[in-house]
């Protein structure tokens, strides 16, 4: 009897083994995936730094002696300093309205907020040229009143805000929806004012999600190329952001300088990635679940 029920007498692969690939297959698949990522993703990043330093440190630093480089850095910081806070306020307002209340047409509103993600960067710039360009809808009116939007800071900010529009909102909406309204309702019932509830209950609940979205929003705002390129007019020292300055240097065959300035943005990208990963590892429970990025 005991012979029959002995587990050894039944020759069967362990489910854990049968439900996975063999060690060799695993090794090969990991190898292919890692090689592919190294070739397609990591090598370009690596190339930015090697090219920037290919003529030595002195040549690298020379790129930052140029006043045009500094005006590009200043412009990029200015644009991000306007676009990111704007997106924070918008994201907080949108997620508050959408997550804390029930109203018809909510799905449509979320889709419309997401819309800029599916528009080509070049088209995102084009739509403002069609409005504010010299032959645009408001072109003559703007010229008559001496208002410059295109080929100036307002145009660059508008294009940047357009391409980053969904960043904060699409992180905060699902996060606030997951958290529901019970805590806010409890605080309100206990007599707290609306603003007080927002500051002491809602904001602490969403702080990591907010920081996460600000990081990504800032990276895009500082790095945006297509949309800004269309509306900036490429005036050296005036309307060139860092990415546009990189383009100009590259097209002038000034490769070391182009890659040196580009390495600033590459470092920014690396910092963004590291902070983003840290947030994902440490505070996964306090970020929106199942983000589609």
């Amino acid at each position: 009897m005991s012979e029959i029920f002995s587990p050894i007498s039944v020759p069967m692969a362990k489910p854990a083994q049968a439900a996975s690939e063999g060690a060799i297959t695993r090794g090969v698949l990991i190898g292919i995936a890692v090689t592919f990522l190294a070739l397609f993703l990591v090598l370009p990043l690596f190339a930015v730094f090697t090219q920037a330093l290919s003529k030595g440190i002195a040549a690298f630093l020379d790129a930052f002696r140029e006043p045009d480089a500094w005006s590009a850095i200043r412009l990029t910081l200015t644009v991000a300093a306007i676009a990111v806070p704007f997106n924070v306020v918008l994201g907080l307002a949108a997620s508050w309205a959408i997550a804390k209340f029930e109203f018809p047409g909510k799905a449509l509103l979320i889709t419309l907020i997401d819309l800029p993600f599916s528009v080509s960067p070049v088209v995102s710039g084009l739509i403002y040229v069609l409005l504010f360009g010299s032959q645009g809808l408001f072109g003559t009116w703007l010229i008559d009143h001496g208002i410059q939007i295109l080929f100036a800071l307002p145009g660059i900010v508008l294009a940047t805000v357009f391409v980053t529009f969904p960043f904060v909102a699409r992180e905060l909406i699902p996060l606030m929806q997951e958290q529901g309204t019970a805590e806010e309702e409890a605080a309100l019932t206990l007599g707290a004012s609306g603003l007080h509830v927002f500051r002491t209950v809602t904001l602490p609940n969403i702080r990591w999600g907010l920081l996460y979205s600000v990081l990504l929003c800032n990276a895009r705002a500082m790095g945006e190329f297509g949309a800004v390129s269309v509306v900036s007019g490429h005036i050296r020292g005036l309307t060139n952001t860092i990415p546009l300055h990189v383009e100009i240097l590259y097209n002038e065959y000034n490769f070391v300088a182009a890659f040196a300035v580009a390495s600033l943005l590459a470092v920014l990208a690396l910092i963004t990635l590291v902070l983003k990963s840290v947030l994902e590892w440490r505070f996964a429970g306090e970020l929106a679940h199942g983000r589609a990025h």
Partner: protein
Amino acid sequence: MVETPRPRWTFRRPSVIPGFGISFGYTLTCLGLIVLLPLAGLVVKASGLGLSGIWNVATDPRVASALRISFGVSAVAALVASTFGFLVAWVLTRYRFPGRKLVDAAVDLPFALPTAVAGIALASLYAPDGLLGAPLARLGIQAAYTPVGIFIAMVFIGLPFAVRTVQPLIAEIDKEIEEASATLGATRIITLTKVVLPPLIPAVLTGFALAFARGVGEYGSIIFIAGNLPYVSEIAPLLIVIKLSEFDYGGAAAIATIMLGISFLTLLAINLIQAWSRRRFGYV
């Protein structure tokens, strides 16, 4: 018995939470002024040309060739990105190996790296004398200044979309189903193709569509490596920029409208796939 009066219909369901008016109003105002109004301007401009006007632009040989390159190369690149994206997602969720978290973080690199930086880096790598361009040239493949270069850039920017749409679903697969399949005598290959893969197909298709849409609209990472030769390696977004620099607003708006139209159809396809997937499998 007192009959409770039927509540008056209100736009939003009553709630004790304050601030709906201001947050909703602010969101709508920003959305309208910054996103919807300018996009409407594009539609107005394009409709001014009429269907025949748009058709004339679309059939101009240079425009037609740019559209063909943008959509054609992007389809191939999205196919490669979603194939390798699936493999990467599988390896990252199913296997444990040293450096896995680092590799996982690296997948998002194309999201974080500005497109212009990626563009010049790819151009220098794949130039005929570049680190990867030289070996490819010996194999008889010229990458830079050809559609191959466009393809490489599009795979680069499309990959994260392909990985990140499939990854959460692979993580959610119930391993017991695979074990059941194995216990019932299925080989690993049969289990993978008949049990594991079918529910993942909608996500793979979604990832493909996202990578495709991104590739079609992409500009910064492509123009440096593409060389931008008309009829050979000129993409549609670049042609918009060229039309604008020639003050041909109508032509630019027409190309943009065609691109938006096709992108809209792609988005529609994604939604249909997801709706179908919800009916078929009960989740997205």
